Protein backbone atom coordinates (compact mmCIF):
# COMPACT_ATOMS: atom_id res chain seq x y z
CA UNK A 1 0.00 0.00 0.00
CA UNK A 2 2.70 2.43 1.12
CA UNK A 3 4.76 1.49 -1.87
CA UNK A 4 2.00 2.04 -4.35
CA UNK A 5 1.16 5.41 -2.92
CA UNK A 6 4.68 6.67 -3.07
CA UNK A 7 5.12 5.38 -6.56
CA UNK A 8 2.02 7.22 -7.71
CA UNK A 9 3.15 10.42 -6.06
CA UNK A 10 6.49 10.03 -7.73
CA UNK A 11 5.11 9.52 -11.20
CA UNK A 12 2.84 12.47 -10.72
CA UNK A 13 5.72 14.63 -9.57
CA UNK A 14 7.85 13.61 -12.49
CA UNK A 15 4.98 13.99 -14.88
CA UNK A 16 4.70 17.70 -14.25
CA UNK A 17 8.38 18.42 -13.78
CA UNK A 18 10.65 19.07 -16.69
CA UNK A 19 12.86 16.17 -15.70
CA UNK A 20 13.35 13.60 -18.39
CA UNK A 21 12.32 10.55 -16.37
CA UNK A 22 12.39 9.06 -12.92
CA UNK A 23 14.95 6.37 -13.31
CA UNK A 24 15.12 3.25 -11.27
CA UNK A 25 17.66 4.77 -8.93
CA UNK A 26 15.35 7.59 -7.90
CA UNK A 27 12.56 5.11 -7.32
CA UNK A 28 14.80 3.03 -5.11
CA UNK A 29 15.76 6.11 -3.09
CA UNK A 30 12.16 7.13 -2.59
CA UNK A 31 11.22 3.63 -1.56
CA UNK A 32 13.95 3.41 1.10
CA UNK A 33 13.07 6.88 2.34
CA UNK A 34 9.36 6.18 2.69
CA UNK A 35 10.10 2.87 4.40
CA UNK A 36 12.12 4.88 6.92
CA UNK A 37 9.20 7.19 7.62
CA UNK A 38 10.02 10.09 5.31
CA UNK A 39 7.09 11.52 3.38
CA UNK A 40 6.65 10.51 -0.25
CA UNK A 41 6.94 13.32 -2.79
CA UNK A 42 3.84 15.45 -3.16
CA UNK A 43 2.27 15.78 -6.56
CA UNK A 44 3.60 19.28 -7.16
CA UNK A 45 7.15 18.62 -5.97
CA UNK A 46 10.29 18.46 -8.07
CA UNK A 47 12.04 15.19 -7.33
CA UNK A 48 15.73 15.01 -8.10
CA UNK A 49 18.34 12.75 -6.60
CA UNK A 50 21.78 13.37 -8.05
CA UNK A 51 23.90 10.48 -9.25
CA UNK A 52 26.70 9.35 -6.96
CA UNK A 53 30.26 10.34 -7.77
CA UNK A 54 30.79 6.78 -9.07
CA UNK A 55 28.60 7.76 -12.04
CA UNK A 56 30.82 10.69 -12.98
CA UNK A 57 33.05 8.62 -15.22
CA UNK A 58 30.16 7.76 -17.56
CA UNK A 59 29.01 11.37 -17.91
CA UNK A 60 29.48 12.86 -21.36
CA UNK A 61 31.49 15.87 -20.34
CA UNK A 62 35.05 17.07 -20.88
CA UNK A 63 37.58 14.95 -18.96
CA UNK A 64 39.07 18.10 -17.43
CA UNK A 65 35.64 19.07 -16.10
CA UNK A 66 35.36 15.60 -14.57
CA UNK A 67 38.67 16.16 -12.84
CA UNK A 68 37.48 19.47 -11.39
CA UNK A 69 34.11 18.02 -10.28
CA UNK A 70 35.96 15.18 -8.58
CA UNK A 71 38.11 17.75 -6.80
CA UNK A 72 34.95 19.56 -5.67
CA UNK A 73 33.47 16.32 -4.37
CA UNK A 74 36.68 15.55 -2.52
CA UNK A 75 36.62 19.01 -0.91
CA UNK A 76 33.01 18.42 0.09
CA UNK A 77 33.58 15.13 1.91
CA UNK A 78 37.11 15.87 3.12
CA UNK A 79 36.90 19.57 3.83
CA UNK A 80 39.40 19.06 6.63
CA UNK A 81 42.14 19.24 3.98
CA UNK A 82 41.51 23.00 4.21
CA UNK A 83 41.90 23.05 8.01
CA UNK A 84 43.82 26.08 9.18
CA UNK A 85 43.38 27.76 5.81
CA UNK A 86 39.63 27.94 5.21
CA UNK A 87 38.26 25.67 7.92
CA UNK A 88 38.84 26.30 11.62
CA UNK A 89 36.73 23.58 13.22
CA UNK A 90 36.37 19.80 12.85
CA UNK A 91 33.56 19.78 10.27
CA UNK A 92 33.33 18.46 6.73
CA UNK A 93 30.61 19.80 4.44
CA UNK A 94 29.26 16.25 4.57
CA UNK A 95 28.97 16.41 8.38
CA UNK A 96 25.65 18.20 7.91
CA UNK A 97 24.86 17.38 4.28
CA UNK A 98 24.70 13.57 4.34
CA UNK A 99 25.29 11.36 1.33
CA UNK A 100 27.86 13.81 -0.11
CA UNK A 101 25.22 16.55 -0.37
CA UNK A 102 22.71 14.40 -2.25
CA UNK A 103 20.31 13.23 0.45
CA UNK A 104 16.79 14.61 0.66
CA UNK A 105 15.89 15.92 4.15
CA UNK A 106 19.59 16.49 4.85
CA UNK A 107 19.69 19.88 3.13
CA UNK A 108 20.83 18.54 -0.22
CA UNK A 109 23.13 21.25 -1.54
CA UNK A 110 22.43 21.10 -5.29
CA UNK A 111 19.23 23.23 -5.10
CA UNK A 112 21.46 26.27 -4.58
CA UNK A 113 22.84 25.70 -8.09
CA UNK A 114 19.40 26.07 -9.68
CA UNK A 115 17.81 28.69 -7.40
CA UNK A 116 20.62 31.26 -7.17
CA UNK A 117 21.34 34.09 -7.88
CA UNK A 118 18.52 35.22 -5.67
CA UNK A 119 17.78 37.45 -2.70
CA UNK A 120 18.59 35.97 0.74
CA UNK A 121 17.04 37.36 3.88
CA UNK A 122 20.03 36.29 6.00
CA UNK A 123 22.29 38.92 4.44
CA UNK A 124 19.75 41.09 2.69
CA UNK A 125 21.15 41.03 -0.81
CA UNK A 126 21.31 38.93 -3.96
CA UNK A 127 23.60 35.93 -3.51
CA UNK A 128 25.39 33.72 -6.00
CA UNK A 129 26.11 30.00 -5.61
CA UNK A 130 29.68 30.89 -4.60
CA UNK A 131 28.37 33.24 -1.94
CA UNK A 132 26.03 30.56 -0.59
CA UNK A 133 28.96 28.16 -0.25
CA UNK A 134 31.02 30.97 1.30
CA UNK A 135 28.25 31.30 3.88
CA UNK A 136 28.66 27.71 5.06
CA UNK A 137 32.45 28.26 5.22
CA UNK A 138 32.08 31.41 7.31
CA UNK A 139 29.56 30.06 9.79
CA UNK A 140 29.25 26.26 9.68
CA UNK A 141 32.99 25.70 9.21
CA UNK A 142 33.85 28.68 11.46
CA UNK A 143 36.20 29.64 8.65
CA UNK A 144 37.25 31.85 5.84
CA UNK A 145 35.86 30.93 2.42
CA UNK A 146 38.23 30.19 -0.45
CA UNK A 147 38.51 33.29 -2.66
CA UNK A 148 35.71 33.80 -5.16
CA UNK A 149 36.95 32.46 -8.47
CA UNK A 150 39.73 30.40 -6.87
CA UNK A 151 40.37 26.81 -7.96
CA UNK A 152 38.79 25.40 -4.80
CA UNK A 153 35.70 27.58 -5.10
CA UNK A 154 35.29 26.70 -8.76
CA UNK A 155 35.71 22.99 -7.98
CA UNK A 156 33.00 23.17 -5.30
CA UNK A 157 30.56 25.03 -7.53
CA UNK A 158 31.26 22.59 -10.38
CA UNK A 159 30.38 19.70 -8.07
CA UNK A 160 27.12 21.43 -7.04
CA UNK A 161 26.27 22.24 -10.66
CA UNK A 162 26.95 18.65 -11.72
CA UNK A 163 24.72 17.28 -8.96
CA UNK A 164 21.92 19.45 -10.34
CA UNK A 165 22.34 18.12 -13.91
CA UNK A 166 19.00 17.82 -15.65
CA UNK A 167 17.14 20.19 -13.33
CA UNK A 168 15.93 23.39 -15.00
CA UNK A 169 17.11 26.77 -13.68
CA UNK A 170 14.70 28.55 -11.34
CA UNK A 171 12.22 25.69 -11.00
CA UNK A 172 8.71 26.83 -10.14
CA UNK A 173 7.85 23.80 -8.01
CA UNK A 174 9.00 23.21 -4.45
CA UNK A 175 11.93 20.80 -4.22
CA UNK A 176 11.32 17.43 -2.53
CA UNK A 177 13.38 17.04 0.66
CA UNK A 178 15.00 20.50 0.51
CA UNK A 179 16.50 21.84 3.74
CA UNK A 180 15.87 20.12 7.06
CA UNK A 181 12.10 20.19 7.37
CA UNK A 182 11.32 20.49 11.08
CA UNK A 183 8.53 18.57 12.76
CA UNK A 184 5.88 20.70 14.37
CA UNK A 185 7.17 22.55 17.42
CA UNK A 186 5.80 20.99 20.61
CA UNK A 187 4.19 23.25 23.20
CA UNK A 188 7.08 23.09 25.64
CA UNK A 189 10.76 22.41 25.28
CA UNK A 190 12.77 21.04 28.18
CA UNK A 191 16.49 21.47 28.73
CA UNK A 192 16.57 18.62 31.25
CA UNK A 193 14.75 16.21 28.95
CA UNK A 194 16.97 17.31 26.07
CA UNK A 195 20.09 16.61 28.09
CA UNK A 196 18.84 13.15 29.05
CA UNK A 197 17.86 12.28 25.52
CA UNK A 198 21.20 13.57 24.19
CA UNK A 199 23.10 11.45 26.66
CA UNK A 200 21.06 8.38 25.80
CA UNK A 201 20.98 8.69 22.02
CA UNK A 202 23.87 10.84 20.92
CA UNK A 203 26.70 10.91 23.45
CA UNK A 204 28.03 7.52 22.39
CA UNK A 205 29.32 9.22 19.22
CA UNK A 206 29.32 12.96 19.91
CA UNK A 207 30.49 12.70 23.55
CA UNK A 208 28.50 13.82 26.59
CA UNK A 209 30.44 17.10 26.40
CA UNK A 210 29.55 17.55 22.71
CA UNK A 211 33.19 17.54 21.59
CA UNK A 212 32.79 14.58 19.21
CA UNK A 213 35.62 12.14 18.59
CA UNK A 214 38.97 12.86 16.96
CA UNK A 215 41.82 10.49 16.25
CA UNK A 216 45.26 11.72 15.18
CA UNK A 217 43.70 15.12 14.64
CA UNK A 218 41.11 13.64 12.27
CA UNK A 219 37.40 14.03 12.90
CA UNK A 220 35.55 10.78 13.33
CA UNK A 221 32.43 12.20 14.98
CA UNK A 222 31.92 15.96 14.60
CA UNK A 223 31.46 18.21 17.63
CA UNK A 224 27.91 19.34 18.36
CA UNK A 225 29.12 22.36 20.33
CA UNK A 226 32.36 23.92 21.57
CA UNK A 227 35.39 25.15 19.64
CA UNK A 228 35.39 22.30 17.12
CA UNK A 229 31.79 22.95 16.13
CA UNK A 230 30.05 25.56 13.97
CA UNK A 231 29.89 29.14 15.24
CA UNK A 232 26.87 31.10 16.47
CA UNK A 233 26.09 32.40 13.00
CA UNK A 234 25.50 28.97 11.42
CA UNK A 235 22.03 28.03 10.22
CA UNK A 236 21.96 24.97 12.43
CA UNK A 237 22.00 27.06 15.64
CA UNK A 238 18.38 27.92 14.90
CA UNK A 239 16.46 25.52 17.09
CA UNK A 240 13.98 24.57 14.37
CA UNK A 241 16.80 23.85 11.90
CA UNK A 242 18.62 21.69 14.44
CA UNK A 243 15.37 19.90 15.30
CA UNK A 244 14.78 19.22 11.61
CA UNK A 245 18.33 18.00 11.08
CA UNK A 246 18.16 15.72 14.10
CA UNK A 247 14.72 14.27 13.43
CA UNK A 248 15.59 13.49 9.81
CA UNK A 249 19.19 12.36 10.19
CA UNK A 250 20.22 11.33 13.70
CA UNK A 251 21.20 9.02 15.32
CA UNK A 252 23.25 8.26 12.24
CA UNK A 253 21.57 5.41 10.33
CA UNK A 254 18.32 5.71 12.30
CA UNK A 255 16.39 8.62 10.80
CA UNK A 256 12.94 9.43 12.22
CA UNK A 257 13.56 7.21 15.21
CA UNK A 258 13.17 10.03 17.75
CA UNK A 259 9.80 11.51 18.62
CA UNK A 260 9.18 15.13 17.58
CA UNK A 261 9.36 16.12 21.23
CA UNK A 262 12.74 14.41 21.66
CA UNK A 263 14.17 15.99 18.52
CA UNK A 264 13.10 19.47 19.66
CA UNK A 265 14.25 18.97 23.26
CA UNK A 266 17.66 17.80 22.07
CA UNK A 267 17.89 20.69 19.59
CA UNK A 268 17.03 23.11 22.40
CA UNK A 269 19.68 21.51 24.63
CA UNK A 270 22.38 21.64 21.93
CA UNK A 271 21.46 25.20 21.04
CA UNK A 272 21.90 26.15 24.70
CA UNK A 273 25.62 25.28 24.67
CA UNK A 274 28.53 27.57 23.84
CA UNK A 275 30.32 27.73 20.51
CA UNK A 276 32.58 30.23 18.71
CA UNK A 277 31.26 33.77 18.35
CA UNK A 278 29.04 34.83 15.45
CA UNK A 279 31.32 36.53 12.88
CA UNK A 280 28.75 39.36 12.73
CA UNK A 281 29.41 40.14 16.43
CA UNK A 282 29.56 43.87 17.06
CA UNK A 283 31.45 43.55 20.34
CA UNK A 284 28.27 43.38 22.35
CA UNK A 285 25.93 40.42 22.51
CA UNK A 286 22.76 42.46 23.11
CA UNK A 287 23.58 44.79 20.22
CA UNK A 288 24.36 41.84 17.92
CA UNK A 289 21.09 40.25 18.92
CA UNK A 290 19.21 43.43 18.16
CA UNK A 291 20.72 43.67 14.69
CA UNK A 292 20.44 40.06 13.67
CA UNK A 293 17.50 38.99 15.81
CA UNK A 294 14.79 39.81 13.28
CA UNK A 295 16.42 37.91 10.41
CA UNK A 296 18.11 35.13 12.32
CA UNK A 297 18.72 34.94 16.06
CA UNK A 298 15.09 35.09 17.07
CA UNK A 299 15.20 31.38 16.17
CA UNK A 300 18.39 30.63 18.16
CA UNK A 301 19.33 30.85 21.83
CA UNK A 302 21.98 33.52 21.17
CA UNK A 303 21.93 36.34 23.69
CA UNK A 304 19.49 34.49 25.93
CA UNK A 305 19.95 33.15 29.41
CA UNK A 306 20.40 29.40 29.59
CA UNK A 307 17.52 27.73 31.39
CA UNK A 308 19.73 25.51 33.55
CA UNK A 309 22.12 28.07 35.06
CA UNK A 310 21.31 31.53 33.76
CA UNK A 311 24.50 31.70 31.65
CA UNK A 312 24.20 34.40 28.98
CA UNK A 313 24.78 32.55 25.70
CA UNK A 314 27.19 34.08 23.19
CA UNK A 315 28.51 36.68 25.63
CA UNK A 316 32.21 36.19 24.86
CA UNK A 317 34.90 37.04 22.32
CA UNK A 318 36.02 33.45 21.68
CA UNK A 319 36.44 32.80 17.97
CA UNK A 320 37.59 29.19 18.40
CA UNK A 321 40.69 28.16 16.45
CA UNK A 322 40.68 31.08 14.06
CA UNK A 323 42.54 34.29 14.81
CA UNK A 324 39.96 36.65 13.33
CA UNK A 325 36.28 37.32 13.78
CA UNK A 326 34.89 38.05 10.35
CA UNK A 327 36.25 36.90 6.99
CA UNK A 328 36.59 39.72 4.41
CA UNK A 329 34.29 37.94 1.99
CA UNK A 330 31.33 38.51 4.29
CA UNK A 331 30.35 41.94 3.09
CA UNK A 332 27.20 43.68 1.92
CA UNK A 333 26.56 44.28 -1.77
CA UNK A 334 24.86 47.42 -2.89
CA UNK A 335 25.15 47.44 -6.70
CA UNK A 336 25.71 51.15 -6.60
Amino acid at each position, binding site marked *: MMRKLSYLALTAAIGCSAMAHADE*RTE*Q*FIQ*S*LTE*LGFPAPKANELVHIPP*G*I*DKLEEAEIHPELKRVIRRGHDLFINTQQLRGKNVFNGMQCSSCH*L*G*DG*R*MPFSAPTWPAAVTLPDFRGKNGHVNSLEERIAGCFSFSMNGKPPEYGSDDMLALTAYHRWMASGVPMYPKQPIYGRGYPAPERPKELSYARGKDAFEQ*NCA*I*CHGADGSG*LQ*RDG*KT*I*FPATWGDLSNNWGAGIVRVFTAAGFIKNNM*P*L*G*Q*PNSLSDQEAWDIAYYISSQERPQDPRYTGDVADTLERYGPTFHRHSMYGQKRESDGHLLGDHANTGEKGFLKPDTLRPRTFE
Partner: protein
Amino acid sequence: MKHISIALAMAGLSVLSASVQGEMQGDAKRGAQAAALCIACHQADGGGKHIEGGESWPRLAGLNATYIANQLHDFKSGARSNASMEPFASMLNEQQIADVAAYYSQLPPTPGQGGEEVDEVLLQRGETIALHGDWSAYLVSCKSCHGPDNQGAGTVFPGIAGQHAGYIESQLQAWKGRTRNNDPQDLMGSVARRMSDEDVRAVAAWLANQPPAAKQQELSQ
Protein backbone atom coordinates in the same frame (compact mmCIF):
# COMPACT_ATOMS: atom_id res chain seq x y z
CA MET B 1 51.50 2.46 36.37
CA LYS B 2 51.60 -1.11 37.58
CA HIS B 3 50.73 -0.03 41.10
CA ILE B 4 47.75 1.85 39.89
CA SER B 5 46.49 -0.99 37.79
CA ILE B 6 46.80 -3.45 40.64
CA ALA B 7 45.07 -1.11 43.05
CA LEU B 8 42.27 -0.58 40.58
CA ALA B 9 42.07 -4.29 39.94
CA MET B 10 41.67 -5.00 43.64
CA ALA B 11 39.05 -2.33 43.98
CA GLY B 12 37.30 -3.92 41.01
CA LEU B 13 37.48 -7.40 42.45
CA SER B 14 35.70 -6.34 45.56
CA VAL B 15 32.82 -4.82 43.65
CA LEU B 16 32.12 -7.43 40.98
CA SER B 17 29.23 -5.48 39.56
CA ALA B 18 28.11 -4.48 36.12
CA SER B 19 29.09 -0.90 36.81
CA VAL B 20 32.77 -1.71 36.61
CA GLN B 21 32.41 -3.30 33.17
CA GLY B 22 35.17 -2.21 30.87
CA GLU B 23 36.66 0.14 33.40
CA MET B 24 38.83 -2.31 35.26
CA GLN B 25 42.52 -2.05 34.42
CA GLY B 26 43.87 -5.18 32.81
CA ASP B 27 47.36 -6.57 33.07
CA ALA B 28 48.58 -7.90 29.74
CA LYS B 29 51.20 -10.18 31.31
CA ARG B 30 48.63 -11.93 33.46
CA GLY B 31 46.32 -11.90 30.46
CA ALA B 32 48.83 -13.95 28.48
CA GLN B 33 48.35 -16.78 30.98
CA ALA B 34 44.58 -16.65 31.00
CA ALA B 35 44.70 -16.58 27.19
CA ALA B 36 45.87 -20.18 27.19
CA LEU B 37 42.14 -21.00 27.10
CA CYS B 38 41.68 -19.06 23.89
CA ILE B 39 44.57 -20.24 21.74
CA ALA B 40 42.83 -23.25 20.22
CA CYS B 41 40.62 -20.98 18.19
CA HIS B 42 42.08 -17.49 18.36
CA GLN B 43 45.61 -18.86 17.76
CA ALA B 44 48.81 -18.10 19.60
CA ASP B 45 49.28 -14.79 17.77
CA GLY B 46 45.66 -13.72 18.35
CA GLY B 47 45.12 -13.84 14.59
CA GLY B 48 42.10 -16.18 14.63
CA LYS B 49 41.17 -17.97 11.45
CA HIS B 50 38.87 -17.70 8.46
CA ILE B 51 37.10 -20.99 7.95
CA GLU B 52 35.32 -21.28 4.64
CA GLY B 53 31.84 -22.66 5.14
CA GLY B 54 32.34 -23.06 8.91
CA GLU B 55 32.46 -20.84 11.97
CA SER B 56 35.33 -18.40 11.52
CA TRP B 57 37.31 -17.27 14.56
CA PRO B 58 37.88 -13.54 14.78
CA ARG B 59 41.27 -11.91 15.02
CA LEU B 60 41.55 -10.33 18.46
CA ALA B 61 45.10 -9.01 18.13
CA GLY B 62 45.07 -5.23 18.16
CA LEU B 63 41.36 -4.77 18.92
CA ASN B 64 40.41 -2.19 21.52
CA ALA B 65 40.70 -3.63 25.06
CA THR B 66 37.43 -2.19 26.32
CA TYR B 67 35.62 -3.57 23.29
CA ILE B 68 37.02 -7.07 23.89
CA ALA B 69 36.18 -6.92 27.59
CA ASN B 70 32.63 -5.80 26.87
CA GLN B 71 32.12 -8.69 24.46
CA LEU B 72 33.39 -11.18 27.03
CA HIS B 73 31.03 -9.77 29.62
CA ASP B 74 28.20 -10.06 27.15
CA PHE B 75 29.02 -13.70 26.32
CA LYS B 76 29.10 -14.41 30.02
CA SER B 77 25.81 -12.71 30.79
CA GLY B 78 24.10 -14.06 27.67
CA ALA B 79 23.61 -10.59 26.18
CA ARG B 80 25.59 -11.95 23.22
CA SER B 81 24.97 -15.58 22.55
CA ASN B 82 27.47 -17.89 20.95
CA ALA B 83 27.71 -21.56 21.77
CA SER B 84 31.49 -21.73 21.31
CA MET B 85 32.29 -18.68 23.38
CA GLU B 86 29.83 -18.96 26.24
CA PRO B 87 31.67 -21.69 28.21
CA PHE B 88 35.05 -20.00 27.88
CA ALA B 89 33.80 -16.55 28.84
CA SER B 90 32.09 -18.11 31.84
CA MET B 91 35.41 -19.47 33.08
CA LEU B 92 36.91 -15.98 33.32
CA ASN B 93 36.39 -13.76 36.32
CA GLU B 94 36.21 -9.96 36.04
CA GLN B 95 39.92 -9.52 36.51
CA GLN B 96 40.81 -12.19 33.99
CA ILE B 97 38.50 -10.58 31.46
CA ALA B 98 40.29 -7.26 31.87
CA ASP B 99 43.64 -9.04 31.65
CA VAL B 100 43.00 -11.06 28.46
CA ALA B 101 41.45 -7.98 26.87
CA ALA B 102 44.59 -5.99 27.65
CA TYR B 103 46.76 -8.83 26.35
CA TYR B 104 45.03 -9.18 22.98
CA SER B 105 44.73 -5.44 22.46
CA GLN B 106 48.51 -5.19 22.67
CA LEU B 107 49.36 -7.96 20.22
CA PRO B 108 50.36 -6.79 16.73
CA PRO B 109 47.40 -7.23 14.37
CA THR B 110 47.63 -9.85 11.64
CA PRO B 111 46.11 -9.68 8.14
CA GLY B 112 42.51 -10.70 7.43
CA GLN B 113 41.69 -13.84 5.49
CA GLY B 114 38.86 -14.93 3.22
CA GLY B 115 38.83 -12.04 0.75
CA GLU B 116 41.55 -13.36 -1.50
CA GLU B 117 39.57 -15.12 -4.17
CA VAL B 118 36.62 -12.85 -4.47
CA ASP B 119 35.85 -11.33 -7.88
CA GLU B 120 36.45 -7.68 -8.72
CA VAL B 121 32.80 -6.72 -9.09
CA LEU B 122 31.94 -7.91 -5.60
CA LEU B 123 35.02 -6.23 -4.13
CA GLN B 124 34.07 -2.98 -5.84
CA ARG B 125 30.62 -3.17 -4.25
CA GLY B 126 32.27 -3.87 -0.90
CA GLU B 127 34.50 -0.83 -1.23
CA THR B 128 31.54 1.38 -2.09
CA ILE B 129 29.63 0.26 0.99
CA ALA B 130 32.63 0.54 3.30
CA LEU B 131 33.82 3.95 2.14
CA HIS B 132 30.79 5.75 0.70
CA GLY B 133 27.74 3.78 1.76
CA ASP B 134 24.79 3.22 -0.54
CA TRP B 135 22.29 5.91 0.26
CA SER B 136 19.74 4.53 -2.20
CA ALA B 137 19.20 1.82 0.43
CA TYR B 138 20.05 4.23 3.28
CA LEU B 139 23.26 2.29 3.95
CA VAL B 140 25.59 4.57 5.87
CA SER B 141 29.27 3.86 5.09
CA CYS B 142 31.17 1.62 7.53
CA LYS B 143 33.83 4.27 7.85
CA SER B 144 31.47 6.88 9.23
CA CYS B 145 31.57 5.02 12.56
CA HIS B 146 34.50 2.60 12.35
CA GLY B 147 36.92 5.39 11.44
CA PRO B 148 38.31 6.72 8.15
CA ASP B 149 40.37 3.55 7.63
CA ASN B 150 37.83 1.25 9.30
CA GLN B 151 40.49 0.50 11.89
CA GLY B 152 38.18 1.32 14.77
CA ALA B 153 36.99 4.38 16.68
CA GLY B 154 37.05 4.67 20.44
CA THR B 155 35.92 1.85 22.67
CA VAL B 156 32.57 1.20 21.00
CA PHE B 157 33.30 0.87 17.28
CA PRO B 158 35.78 -1.97 16.72
CA GLY B 159 38.37 -2.15 13.98
CA ILE B 160 36.90 -4.16 11.11
CA ALA B 161 39.59 -3.65 8.44
CA GLY B 162 41.69 -6.80 8.25
CA GLN B 163 39.10 -8.89 10.11
CA HIS B 164 38.33 -12.29 8.55
CA ALA B 165 35.63 -12.28 5.90
CA GLY B 166 33.85 -15.30 7.36
CA TYR B 167 33.60 -13.66 10.77
CA ILE B 168 32.35 -10.30 9.48
CA GLU B 169 29.81 -12.08 7.33
CA SER B 170 28.53 -14.22 10.20
CA GLN B 171 28.15 -11.20 12.46
CA LEU B 172 26.31 -9.11 9.88
CA GLN B 173 24.03 -12.07 9.28
CA ALA B 174 23.51 -12.42 13.02
CA TRP B 175 22.44 -8.78 13.20
CA LYS B 176 20.18 -9.20 10.20
CA GLY B 177 18.57 -12.24 11.80
CA ARG B 178 18.43 -10.46 15.19
CA THR B 179 20.45 -13.18 16.89
CA ARG B 180 23.16 -10.66 17.77
CA ASN B 181 21.81 -7.60 19.50
CA ASN B 182 24.37 -6.49 22.05
CA ASP B 183 25.29 -3.39 20.02
CA PRO B 184 24.46 -0.11 21.71
CA GLN B 185 21.23 1.52 20.50
CA ASP B 186 20.82 -1.09 17.76
CA LEU B 187 23.27 1.02 15.74
CA MET B 188 24.73 -1.92 13.83
CA GLY B 189 21.49 -3.86 13.65
CA SER B 190 19.61 -1.08 11.91
CA VAL B 191 22.27 -0.84 9.22
CA ALA B 192 22.79 -4.59 8.79
CA ARG B 193 19.08 -5.23 8.30
CA ARG B 194 19.14 -2.98 5.23
CA MET B 195 21.97 -4.97 3.63
CA SER B 196 21.34 -7.70 1.07
CA ASP B 197 23.16 -11.02 1.42
CA GLU B 198 25.34 -9.94 -1.47
CA ASP B 199 26.16 -6.63 0.25
CA VAL B 200 27.21 -8.61 3.31
CA ARG B 201 29.52 -10.88 1.32
CA ALA B 202 30.92 -7.95 -0.62
CA VAL B 203 31.78 -5.77 2.34
CA ALA B 204 33.14 -8.69 4.37
CA ALA B 205 35.51 -9.67 1.57
CA TRP B 206 36.66 -6.11 0.91
CA LEU B 207 37.28 -5.38 4.58
CA ALA B 208 39.24 -8.62 5.01
CA ASN B 209 41.64 -7.37 2.35
CA GLN B 210 42.37 -4.05 4.09
CA PRO B 211 45.26 -3.39 6.45
CA PRO B 212 44.22 -3.79 10.11
CA ALA B 213 46.45 -0.92 11.26
CA ALA B 214 48.34 1.93 9.68
CA LYS B 215 51.40 1.45 11.82
CA GLN B 216 52.13 -1.19 14.38
CA GLN B 217 52.98 1.39 17.10
CA GLU B 218 49.63 3.10 16.82
CA LEU B 219 47.86 0.08 18.20
CA SER B 220 49.91 -0.53 21.25
CA GLN B 221 49.00 2.81 22.81
